[in-house]
């Protein structure tokens, strides 16, 4: 009872709201509170599992803890299939305290606001995969206007040139992030700064996430990653070809341009 009161008090305070927003932006893509595991573990009652000092130092620098050989940190690493928790931007010791306060308060609630989105567990259909492909390649524009994935990412089945090479290949992302719930959560609230900036003002709708997850699941099962080298070579050769063609075109358009005077006289006289 006291916990509920405390939680309510914390949540309504200004700092509480700010911390909640921070959690949503930075933590919720990998963690739920009472919603089960995503890329990272469920944080419900985490403050009871481990003492605050340990948690604080781990959150501030996860890699250091792992390098130091801390047994619990190594256990977490194994559970996360080797994905190291990234160092979160803007974290200060104070803020870690606030976040832990928030987790403590939310854990006391019956249903936390960070339980995670209720992801549709409806089975994927071929139509979902097709829709996902349309979204990926930009034939369908996501409702909020997010850019098509293939400007930066590649997956099998989008042609010989592949997609973009600025972002990682997404063929096996379904497995890499640990399955459907984690991938869905990630698409809802991505963890990387680049994806955050892209999706902050243009979040994906639940049905779009469903379709994309269906696509990634399908590709992870069937596809082999695009051979980046081959695709890049094809692209470069094509570029060279088009450039050469453009030069030929310019040459035709400006056929009568000024060229050498003397040399042409001499050459004409040799004929």
């Amino acid at each position, binding site marked *: 009872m006291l916990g509920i009161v405390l939680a309510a008090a914390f949540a309504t305070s200004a700092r509480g709201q700010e911390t909640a927003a921070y959690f949503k932006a930075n933590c919720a893509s990998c963690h739920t509170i009472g919603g089960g595991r995503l890329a990272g573990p469920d944080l419900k009652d985490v403050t009871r599992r481990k003492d605050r000092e340990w948690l604080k130092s781990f959150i501030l620098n996860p890699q250091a803890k792992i390098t130091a050989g801390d047994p619990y940190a190594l256990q977490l690493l194994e559970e996360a299939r080797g994905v190291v928790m990234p160092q979160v931007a803007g974290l200060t010791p104070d803020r870690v305290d606030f976040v832990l306060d928030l987790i403590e308060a939310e854990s006391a609630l019956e249903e936390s606001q960070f339980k995670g989105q209720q992801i549709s567990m409806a089975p994927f259909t071929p139509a979902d995969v097709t829709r996902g492909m349309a979204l990926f390649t930009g034939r369908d524009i996501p409702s909020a206007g997010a850019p098509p994935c293939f400007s930066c990412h590649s997956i099998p089945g989008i042609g010989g040139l592949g997609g973009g090479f600025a972002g990682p290949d997404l063929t096996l992302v379904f497995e890499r992030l640990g399955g459907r719930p984690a991938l869905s959560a990630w698409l809802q609230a991505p963890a990387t700064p680049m994806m955050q900036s892209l999706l902050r003002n243009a979040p994906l709708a639940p049905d779009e996430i469903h379709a994309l997850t269906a696509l990634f699941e399908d590709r992870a099962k069937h596809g082999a990653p695009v051979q980046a080298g081959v695709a890049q070579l094809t692209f470069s050769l094509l570029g060279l070809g088009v450039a050469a063609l453009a030069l030929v075109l310019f040459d035709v358009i400006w056929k009568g341009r*000024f060229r*050498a*005077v*003397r*040399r042409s*006289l*001499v050459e004409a006289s040799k004929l």
Partner: protein
Amino acid sequence: MNVRAQIGTMFHLDKCIGCHTCSLACKNIWTDRRGTEYMWWNNVETKPGTGYPCQWEDQEKFRGGWEKHNGSIRLKSTGKARIVTNIFHNPHMPSMDDYYEPWTYDYQHLFNAPEGPDQPTARPISMVTGEHIDVESGPNWDDDLGGSPVYAEHDPNLAGLSEEQRRQLFSVEQLVFFYLPRICNHCLNPACVASCPSGALYKRGEDGIVLVDQKRCRAWRSCIAACPYKKVFFNWHTGKSEKCILCYPRLETGQAPACFHSCVGRIRYLGVLLYDAERIADAANLPTEQLIDAQREMILDPHDSHVIENALKNGISDAVIEAAQDSPVYKFVKVWKIALPPHIEFRTLPMLFYVPPMAPVMAQRRDGALDSVSDNLFHDIEQARVPLKFLANLLGAGQEGKVLYALRKQKAVRWYRRALTVGDVDLETARRMLRDADCTEHEAQAIYELTSLCTVEQRFVIPPMLREQAIESLKDPHEQKQNAGFGFLSGPRRGL
């Protein structure tokens, strides 16, 4: 009336022997520097020939000079709007190959060559790249090649000649050529000045010499495309344009320009011309056939009291007016009308004039021998080996009338002098010829004297340049001295 003074020049082509002494004098003084190796501010061309740079007269290729446009004239090469698409590259410029790649010889090799079965040779080396090159052309590559099917046959002045005339011009026994020495014309309506986006080119107010300010030049090279005579050059080392400066440092010290001074044939004349600057715009805009007369009209009579009064009002000093009254160029151009501007159809109003050359007449076979004596007095001018049309294209804006007038007068003077000194022709006939050629005996004597007996002082009437006064019109020398300190002297170089 806006009277201004201009140093006018005149080349008597009938006296030019094509020795290139002028070119060398100029080269040794001005263009022996790095970056200027390929430049010949003064060059001598053989006509018919393509000249230097190759085919410079063909403005369909090089787009120099002015053209009529909507009732006015505009630069053929560029304009405020037209420059936008060519802002980084001006496509209508002669390349180094059209000038020539300057070279020297590997003389050291003659001394350092290892012992071998053959004589060592001095191979040509490019003065631009320093590599061995095969010399393919030079600044006077077509020198004396009157009949050359590569060069002479492509002279733009051959336009309008009949097949028969062309055939004669290139058949072996009737081959003919003459020489055309060229420097900057220091035009009244200079296209180079008009084209410069940086305002680096200017025409000196007091003497009309066209110069490039080496500090303001920004290497746009508009002047090189715009000058129809291709007499502005780009120094590839300093990144600035350069041109003939009419040896103004020599003029300012009372000496004739180096090419004038060194001329072996004494073909060059120099003197002040007074002209009416108000008429430049209108004159340059007239139909082609009126250009020569319009330019002569602009040149004012320095003896006319009205002209003198206006000249004094414009700050032209008495000494300059006196020099203008003695100017040999004034006599040849305006009084005798036997000196003509080159290609005035480019509309830059050049202030260098040429007396057209007399050419050998077409020989006729008589009794198995070639005979060139003609009974028809003036008739053989039309029969000269150099077709009148060719000279008209070069010096008469395409009209034979002006060239014919100059040649007839010259021939009449010759005939008259022959009657006086040799006596093998009839004096009465000579007098009749003079009358037919619009020439008095007095005038004939004057033409003869200034052509054949002229002294240095008669050929070069150099006005006092009065630089100190010219500077005073811009700034007070005392103030300048107190404000400027020692200042800096540095050579031109690339960049701002």
